[in-house]
């Protein structure tokens, strides 16, 4: 499950201990891991491998559907371009749904504001949720990661929604090696800093350690219960 970049530099990087341990723990938790320390192209290469490995074969002619965050951090990677070239349908989390023909979902909650606003806000949210539920893969970055436990931290903000890492069948997080700290308390201290800088914590911080699991059936490990069946990390620099 452990893929190495073309340069095969696993374990030889300085400061590689944290990276190595992070990836080892993630893989031990039934996650998938790729190392791509060779820059943006290396990361794109690893992502192509991840998609091929983690998205199950679809019916002939069906294209893998991907939903991805679209933050400034991801700009250098040109995910939409890459995914198109790989034959995937890609939607960015922050794309507005196309056209005004978007049907209003009756289950969408009434939100504050004008009818129009409420309708479109509800429609957008409903579209987002349906999109993610129908996607084969969600792609995100992360805020920080933990070497000791194989954990990534995902903060919910307008451009970094909760659902791309939750509803699609597979999730890949792009992790900068510099984001990996030693322990969970070390990471939570970064959140304390965030709180000071931003005047408050995000509405949700999700620490994710591998794919969804349960041992409720005869104590036997079941992977992919409600959350993603496959959870991957690409550790790189870009």
């Amino acid at each position, binding site marked *: 499950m452990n893929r190495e970049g073309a340069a095969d530099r696993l374990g030889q990087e300085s400061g590689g201990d944290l990276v190595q341990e992070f990836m080892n723990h993630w893989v031990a938790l039934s996650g998938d891991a790729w190392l791509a320390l060779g820059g943006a192209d290396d990361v794109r290469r690893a992502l192509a491998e991840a998609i091929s490995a983690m998205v199950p074969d679809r019916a002939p002619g069906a294209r893998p559907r991907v939903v991805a965050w679209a933050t400034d951090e991801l700009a250098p990677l040109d995910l939409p371009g890459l995914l198109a070239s790989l034959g995937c349908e890609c939607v960015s989390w922050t794309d507005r749904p196309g056209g005004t023909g978007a049907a209003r979902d009756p*289950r969408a909650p009434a939100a504050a504001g004008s009818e129009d606003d409420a309708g479109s806000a509800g429609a957008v949210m409903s579209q987002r949720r349906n999109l993610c539920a129908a996607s084969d893969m969600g792609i995100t970055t992360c805020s920080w990661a933990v070497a*000791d436990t194989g954990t990534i931290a995902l903060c919910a903000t307008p451009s970094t929604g909760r659902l791309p890492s939750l509803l699609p069948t597979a999730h890949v997080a792009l992790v900068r090696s510099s984001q990996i700290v030693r322990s969970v308390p070390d990471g939570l201290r970064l959140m*304390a800093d965030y709180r000071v800088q931003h005047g408050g914590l995000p509405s949700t911080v999700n620490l994710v350690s591998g794919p969804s699991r349960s041992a409720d059936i005869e104590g036997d490990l079941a992977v992919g219960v409600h959350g993603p069946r496959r959870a991957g990390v690409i550790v790189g620099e870009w």
Partner: protein
Amino acid sequence: MPGVLPPAGASWPERRRRALADPTMRAAVALSARNLAEKKAAAYAAYPPGEAMRKPAVASRREALKHTDALLEELTRQVEARGGHVSRAGGPADVGRYVLAVARRRGAQRVVKSKSMATEEVALNEQLEAAGLHVRETDLGEYIIQLARERPAHILVPASHKTRQQIRALFDAEAEKSKVAPPTGDATPELTAFARRQLRAEFLAAEIGITGGNFLVAETGTLVLITNEGNGRMTTSLPPVHIAVVGIDKIVATWDDVAVLLQQAPMSGTGQLISTYTSFITGPRLPGELDGPEEFHLLLLDNGRHELLGTAYEDVLSCIRCGACLNVCPVFRTIGGQAYGSMYSGPIGVVLTPLLGGLDQAPELPKSACAMCYACRDACPMEIELPRHILALRRTEIEESMEPLTVRLTFELWGRFWANPSGFRLTARLARLGQRALMRNGRLTRAPGLVGGWTATRDSPPVAKETFHEWWQRTRTGSPT
């Protein structure tokens, strides 16, 4: 104010009989408990920082309990500053009333729930279903026992008493009822795939998501949820309303405090260094966010907790619901969780059930569900003095005259006789006279009264022809007995 817990259902003798007569359940429970206990030991051995964090975690819990009221007020301010709603719930009726009011206001009918002991305490599902709401438990183990219409067998692994064949049968019946395809087999992936499909539909249609909470951070107004399956995230990300029902004892003072506390529950409960998902929720979604609940409600549940503060039982409220005490308890391993008649089973259940619900709720638990072996005390990561509390509850039952008169008199007489050596010697002589009729093959096989409890299932040696006292007297002091 004392709390209210759901009634045990069957009587203690009936629960005990059922448990002892179920070898399948007993084997499953014992295996699961042993397995989890071993995993805990392995986790702490493999990760020394876990143990290093434990002592400060205990200290911060104890300290927080001393300042519960002030911390709850700070928590409330923080949550409300983020647009959340905070309300105090004295007991079950308050919780039901609040949730139903939200449901009514929103015209909501469909509820999904992530595992919560607090909501089981207040029988929330029953209250909501009685009002016509559809409530679905989404934790895989809780889903299984919801389908089975049973109570949880263990705090962490509620369906650990069920075999996969039994689970498949439940899923088949549910598939039939919902007119969907049943599981394709009883292998774990097949059963899981069925549950995933069914529950995903529920998540996407739900109008209210209800969770419990593992910790509440006063400093930041944050709810901490520790889960493995993803249903906690689903429940708090998809429905437009999130209601969290959390005991007031879950309060922690600062963000730093929760950082050292966080891993103790997964490490002690299942041997994981951290659970798959740990969610820190601070209020509803912020403006501009495209997912997440628009309403966040925090119900702070008392239900008998507040009146334990400042008493000798205060440390019981440090419990992080890890289940470590259950896993090492020889009585739990023998009878399983359902025999306790409470959502809290094992040693913590023996203590918490009467403390929250009153001793009349479960008078048998302190005396009948504990062999005073101290395994639980050694296993508890929060260093709760469980055996001491069980002893105190036994003493209280006697002081409150909850013991049958025969037992009372037996002990009083016995105490009188044995508090001095001549009385002691007299009982030996009397026993020797009376025991001949009760012996067979040189052993006591029947006995009256309390001692008859022994001979019901074991032989006893008879009182010796010459006691040690008498032997010493005869051989060492040169004077006749």
